[in-house]
């Protein structure tokens, strides 16, 4: 602490002690200081106001200087000592005016704002009146008047009103710290709130101990009561009187606290994220558009046009289950519904034909399209054309309509189908992709998808590093640096995930993308796509589709790596309900210590 030369020093010899000197923040307090010398050996006076951080109230350093009788000579530092003291808090930054108000009421002082100095001073009533008198003498009558009315607002009644008030305190803690808290929830079955109170109550107690000596006995008792009441919240136990509904509402709190969920609204997702998710899903549909003859069920450009028409369905929802050390990442919604209005443009009808045929024939594996007419007439036409060429479909037993409709259209039937479609001007389209109802096996049989495969979510194991500062995602450390390991790991997961969606999982193409590109480039070097014979053209087009898919997987892997890293190295907002009078006591500790450290240390020590 540096001492400006203009500060006045006082020195006094106390028996058995060296010279004690106090650094004062205002000359007039010098007189008050005199009154504190009652002859006892250990009287010390504390001044937090000149400290860099006014709320650092745990310690004060007293310097002892030998003053020369000759004026102008620099004092000689003889001795200094640190004291852990109860502190009279007298100055706060303006941004902490709410805390200042509480401490004012606790210490029977009055908060006076000095906006020019960006501070709030806590003054006694006499000090306020003196300040008001000085303002009046300098012609600031209005300000002086305001000051004189202030003491009326800071009285016993004001304290009692403050005392029973509740408020919220919001803190940001690192996601790994939140995870650690939820592990504790899982281990103890105590709600998160109970655990947090156990962690933070000792901090509040510590602050209270520091100021206790400076507040009157009854106020101290009330604060003590408030702390006890706050930390007394217990984990809910089912009692005989509780009916099911009442117990359920308590239990839901514990269940909800066992997982950590966060999501981003579509507007919060980056353009890259949305584009890459869309590209991946489009390329997966295009991959499933490849038929058994090395060609396509539908012209790829039509499928692309359809996919480009619909809005992206990117999403980001992360759910973390600390008890099972799992993280699930949802990155798209597989359902879209939208209206399509068709103009006279032939391209529009081509698109409508694709949708109608796909709804009927279901060629593209796991793509579920349904159309509905927007008018009763439109719906009737749709029903009629979807049933074309189904009346001759026979078989043992009843055949469901959708299976009848999968029967190929005859040439005449196709003509009538098109004619009917062209009379429908607008439709509601519902699309689900992927809609994996059944997995197709190599022997032609079908089976249900494994339970653990959920087709818009990827799962990872999630744990904490030894120092609990970062996450390990499937064993890969997640810190602020980009991780190629994580990109490749996500890529593997996406490919595995995609394999189940592919029309024939056992033939899922896994080429070397570099070699594949070379093959395509070398073929196109010889000739353009249009000049190749049909078979070669189809072959190259299929290879380009496969390459496009793998490129989209790589792009999406990078995007998901960025997203996961951002979420797992970010922070979570925690809102704590607590008595308003205790909030500044907690703030006293939080200005000195990191809340993550407080929480982790407490949990390590057993809460």
């Amino acid at each position, binding site marked *: 602490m540096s001492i400006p030369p203009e500060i006045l020093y006082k020195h006094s010899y106390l028996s058995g002690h060296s010279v004690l000197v106090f650094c004062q923040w205002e000359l007039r307090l010098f007189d008050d200081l005199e009154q504190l010398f009652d002859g006892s050996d250990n009287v010390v006076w504390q001044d937090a106001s000149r400290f860099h951080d006014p709320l650092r109230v745990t310690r004060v350093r007293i310097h002892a200087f030998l003053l020369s009788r000759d004026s102008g000579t620099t004092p000689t530092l003889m001795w200094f000592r640190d004291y852990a003291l109860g502190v009279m808090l007298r100055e706060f930054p303006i941004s902490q005016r709410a805390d200042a108000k509480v401490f004012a009421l606790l210490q029977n002082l009055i908060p006076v704002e000095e906006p020019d100095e960006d501070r709030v001073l806590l003054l006694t009533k006499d000090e306020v009146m003196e300040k008001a008198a000085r303002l009046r003498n300098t012609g600031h009558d209005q300000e002086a008047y305001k000051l004189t009315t202030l003491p009326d607002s800071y009285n016993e009644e004001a304290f*009692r*009103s403050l*005392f*029973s*008030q*509740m*408020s*919220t305190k919001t803190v940001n803690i690192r996601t790994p710290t939140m995870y650690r808290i939820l592990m504790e929830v899982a281990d103890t079955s105590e709600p998160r709130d109970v655990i947090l109170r156990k962690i933070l109550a000792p901090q509040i107690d510590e602050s209270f101990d520091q100021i206790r000596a400076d507040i009157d006995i*009854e106020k101290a*008792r*009330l604060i003590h*009561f*408030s702390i006890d*009441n*706050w930390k*007394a*919240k*217990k984990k*809910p136990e089912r009692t005989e*009187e509780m009916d099911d*509904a*009442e117990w359920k509402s308590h239990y839901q709190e514990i269940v909800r606290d066992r997982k950590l969920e966060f999501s981003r609204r579509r507007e919060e997702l980056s353009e890259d994220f949305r584009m890459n998710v869309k590209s991946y899903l489009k390329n997966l549909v295009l991959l499933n558009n490849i038929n058994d003859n090395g060609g396509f069920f539908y012209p790829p450009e039509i499928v692309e046009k359809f996919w480009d028409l619909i809005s992206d369905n990117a999403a980001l929802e992360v759910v973390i289950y600390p008890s099972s050390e799992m993280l699930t990442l949802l990155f798209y919604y597989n359902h879209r519904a939208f209206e399509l209005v068709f103009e006279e443009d032939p391209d529009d009808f081509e698109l409508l034909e694709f949708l109608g045929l796909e709804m009927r024939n279901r060629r593209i594996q796991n793509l579920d399209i349904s159309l509905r007419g927007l008018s009763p007439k439109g719906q009737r036409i749709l029903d009629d054309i979807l049933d074309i060429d189904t009346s001759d479909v026979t078989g043992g037993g009843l055949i469901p309509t959708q299976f009848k409709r999968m029967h190929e259209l005859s040439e005449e039937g196709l003509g009538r189908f098109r004619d009917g479609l062209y009379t429908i001007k607008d439709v509601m389209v519902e699309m689900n992709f992927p809609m994996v109802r059944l997995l197709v096996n190599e022997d032609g049989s079908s089976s249900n998808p494994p339970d653990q495969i959920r087709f818009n979510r990827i799962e990872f194991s999630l744990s904490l590093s030894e120092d609990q500062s970062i996450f390990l995602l499937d064993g890969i450390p997640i810190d602020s640096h980009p991780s190629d390991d994580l990109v490749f790991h996500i890529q593997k997961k996406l490919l595995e995930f995609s394999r189940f969606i592919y029309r024939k999982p056992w033939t899922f193409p896994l080429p070397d993308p570099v070699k594949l590109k070379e093959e395509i480039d070398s073929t196109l070097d010889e000739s353009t796509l249009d000049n190749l014979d049909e078979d070669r053209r189809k072959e190259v087009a299929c290879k380009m589709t496969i390459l496009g898919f793998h490129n989209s997987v790589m792009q999406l892997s990078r995007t998901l790596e960025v997203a996961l890293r951002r979420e797992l190295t970010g922070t979570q907002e925690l*809102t704590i*309900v607590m*008595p308003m009078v205790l909030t500044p006591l907690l703030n006293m500790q939080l200005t000195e210590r990191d809340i993550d450290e407080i929480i982790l240390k407490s949990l390590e020590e057993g809460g």
Partner: protein
Amino acid sequence: MDTVGIYVDGMNIDLGLSHAGESGIQLNIGSILNEYAEQFGSIIDRIVHIDETYDWRIEGTETDLVDNGFDVIRDERFPYKSLTDFRIGCQIIDRLHAEDCPDMFILVTGDKDFLVVLEYIDQHDRRAMIIGESNSLAAPLLQKCQELEFDCHSIQLISESIKSSGVLTQLPTTQR
């Protein structure tokens, strides 16, 4: 003189106090609320809503409320669905449109569903206050109070403050 209405979500406050072991407050809740509310004006409404099938956790709670001038209204209940929140909300809306609308509404609850009611009171230029059980005050309700500059108080801390000021010295000690 300002007027005050007190509207109590009976089950919410009774269950909260019961879980917190605050039997002393449960047996004197009517007196405590009266004593506290009187500082804000003349109390013209004192209403408690509970489900028709609800049993107070401590015998004597309803007696105390009735003795202190509260109307205890038992609302029809449907299986798995209580309607008391809606009834209280609708009652407050009715009062907001009445000629003798209170200047201040004191809602005794911790349920976040009432944040909509607080907005409505604010839109009608009336003051409101929430009094709830410390441990079951919902954070969103508190945040709405902060946003609208309404006070939110703990019934336990009110009770202790009243005791401390020398009034109601016959309150039984709380049991934990």
